[in-house]
């Protein structure tokens, strides 16, 4: 510690020099994507990567946007709200993106919408379900994906009533998504007159024996499990070991974890008769674009799509490109105006954002959701009845 003077000056100059060198302007229209590439839900990042690749090819093969190529910059949020907020900001200040799409963690999205609102950047949320994301009615925030209240009231509660369950158990992870959807489910179950109990669990927990023993004592007919990621695999496997299921039907209230490549390895035979929520089925296609997506996906990656989040991000990028085209410029307020008038065929239906302010339906488009059951390792749609390919087995 001889002479900090030299070091301080050295430090000042090096940092100034390094900071002064910046990325050069490219002749593209940049759209930012936020999502977890690392952390517990890094699988979503992989699904996003696939969807992004297909979307870029799809749009640029058709001539790009505003005579320029579309470029996507993917910023990792690791599923953490703080990284999400700073990543979002980085996309805007460093990469100068015109719009941001993506996100699959409600907690991260709730941090990002604050930044979007403050920096006035249009943001289309793809797969973060918490109601407040759109219920805050921020002018720059849209959601082309499910909301908790939509999933609960349109799909899960109706299914519970349809199947005639009388006793239910709600298991929620302690995140914005888990706690939010559990509360909405409670309200819906009270309205239905279904007896229920509820417990909260830690997202990263690997051992659910204690919780399951408590659940077994209540002897529910259905367990509504709002646990994302590996936690769900452990839960399903251990519920099987303790003979809690198949006496009680387990519903994975998110979906993708039941379709992850290692699901069957992790749960073994106990995965049979598990049910999950999804906006995609391996055989049912809702629009012509969905069939095209499947062909493109199989050609590009040599396998069939499983995680429906690759389609969600594909749709979100399409919406963004469509809005830029219609706005004719990249000015934020024009883009918001264009987004409000979106009417676009996506892979999950015709996308059109809600316009009634006040609730979570504002700037929100709710894709149709299915409830699917694993029956001898085949996906069988059991709800809604008009799309059903089979019936609930217990």
């Amino acid at each position, binding site marked *: 510690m001889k002479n900090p003077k030299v070091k301080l000056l050295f430090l000042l100059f090096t940092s100034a020099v390094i900071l002064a060198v910046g990325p050069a302007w490219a002749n593209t229209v940049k759209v930012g994507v936020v999502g977890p590439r690392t952390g*517990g*839900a890094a699988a979503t990042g992989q699904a996003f990567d696939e969807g992004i690749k297909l979307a870029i090819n799809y749009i640029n093969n058709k001539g790009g946007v505003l005579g320029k190529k579309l470029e996507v910059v993917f910023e990792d949020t690791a599923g953490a709200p703080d990284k999400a907020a700073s990543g979002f900001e980085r996309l805007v200040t460093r990469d100068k993106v015109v719009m941001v799409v993506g996100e699959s963690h409600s907690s991260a999205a709730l941090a990002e919408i604050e930044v979007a609102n403050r920096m006035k950047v249009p943001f289309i949320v793809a797969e973060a379900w918490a109601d407040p994301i759109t219920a805050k009615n921020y002018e720059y925030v849209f959601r082309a994906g499910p909301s908790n209240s939509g999933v609960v009231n349109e799909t899960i509660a109706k299914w519970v009533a349809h199947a005639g369950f009388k006793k239910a158990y709600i298991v929620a992870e302690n995140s914005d998504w888990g706690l939010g959807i559990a509360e909405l489910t409670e309200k819906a179950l009270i309205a239905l007159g279904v007896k229920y109990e509820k*417990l909260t669990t*830690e997202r990263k927990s*690997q051992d659910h024996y204690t919780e399951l023993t408590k659940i077994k004592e209540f002897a529910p007919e259905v367990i509504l499990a709002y646990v994302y990621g590996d936690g769900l695999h452990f839960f399903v496997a251990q519920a099987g*070991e*303790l*003979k809690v299921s198949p006496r009680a039907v387990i519903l994975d209230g998110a979906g993708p974890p039941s379709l*992850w490549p*290692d699901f069957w390895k992790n749960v073994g035979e106990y995965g049979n008769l598990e049910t999950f929520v999804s906006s995609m089925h391996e055989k049912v296609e809702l629009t012509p674009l969905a069939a095209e997506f499947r062909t493109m996906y199989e050609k590009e990656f040599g396998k069939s799509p499983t995680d429906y989040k690759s389609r969600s991000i594909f749709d979100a990028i399409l919406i963004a490109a469509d809005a830029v085209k219609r706005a004719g410029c990249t000015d934020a307020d024009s883009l918001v105006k264009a987004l409000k008038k979106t009417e676009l065929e996506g892979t999950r239906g015709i996308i059109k954002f809600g316009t009634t302010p006040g609730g979570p339906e504002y700037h929100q488009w709710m894709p149709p959701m299915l409830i699917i059951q694993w029956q001898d390792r085949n996906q069988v749609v059991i709800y809604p009845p008009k799309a059903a390919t089979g019936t609930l087995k217990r």
Partner: protein
Amino acid sequence: MLPMALMNGLVMGVIYALAALGVSLVVGIMNVINFAHGEFYILAGYFSYLFADTLGLNPILSMSLAVGMVFLFGIVIEYTIIRPTYGNHMYSLILTFILSIVLQNAYLLIFGPYPKKPPGWVKGATNIFGDFCYGNQRLAALAAGTVLIVAVFLLIKKTWFGRMIRAASQDREMAELNGVNTALLNTFSFGLGCALAAAAGVVLAPVFPVTPTSGVPVALTAFVVVVLGGMGSMWGCVIGGLILGLVENLGAAFISTGYKHLFGFIILIVVLAVKPSGLFGSRET
């Protein structure tokens, strides 16, 4: 509720003890806390998955290979990274702490974020005393863990190698004077410590699949057990592991599942405040 919690506590206690034995061995002989202990545990889980699942080898062969490879990896790490840190707590802590983060992120790059589960040895569940169901794989892990702990005790207490280890951990200079090559012994013991983490890893991975970061709680728990039992004491590890397993599971069952892992750390702080040498520790550093 109670029988289930006791059973869980017993199973987890044995696994904790096994994981902690490796930490304890390295502390006792080398005076080094290996922060990356949990990452060796995870590595064994990945190897065992790779051999048994991807290559389709026999599970027992896969597990032995996995433990062997982690042992070799441990020796390489000792030789390249740990060796210059002897006698310097701070340096070894810093190095192994950085190492643990490097390994976690390397696993993410190599094995991806999904949990990896080696095939189970047995299927199904057993109804115990007609009272509650318990996964057979967990019972198998309990048996395997017990056998391994007994084997380690025999190795240390009954063999020539064990005598050298005990001599070196009691008085290093004396052992050197008596012709023990302590550098070689260090390398070998560090490898052995890693192999014990690996053994715990292959036993538990079919129950709790491994992810890049799931080694962290294992290492933290092992540290708690080592302090609770007394640094360097083998019996301390076994008793400490069982106490911790029981306390955590009883606490989870009757107090709060969310605070399950808090109990262990509270024990740690209390032990350090009241009797820093632990239950069976003879010396204080």
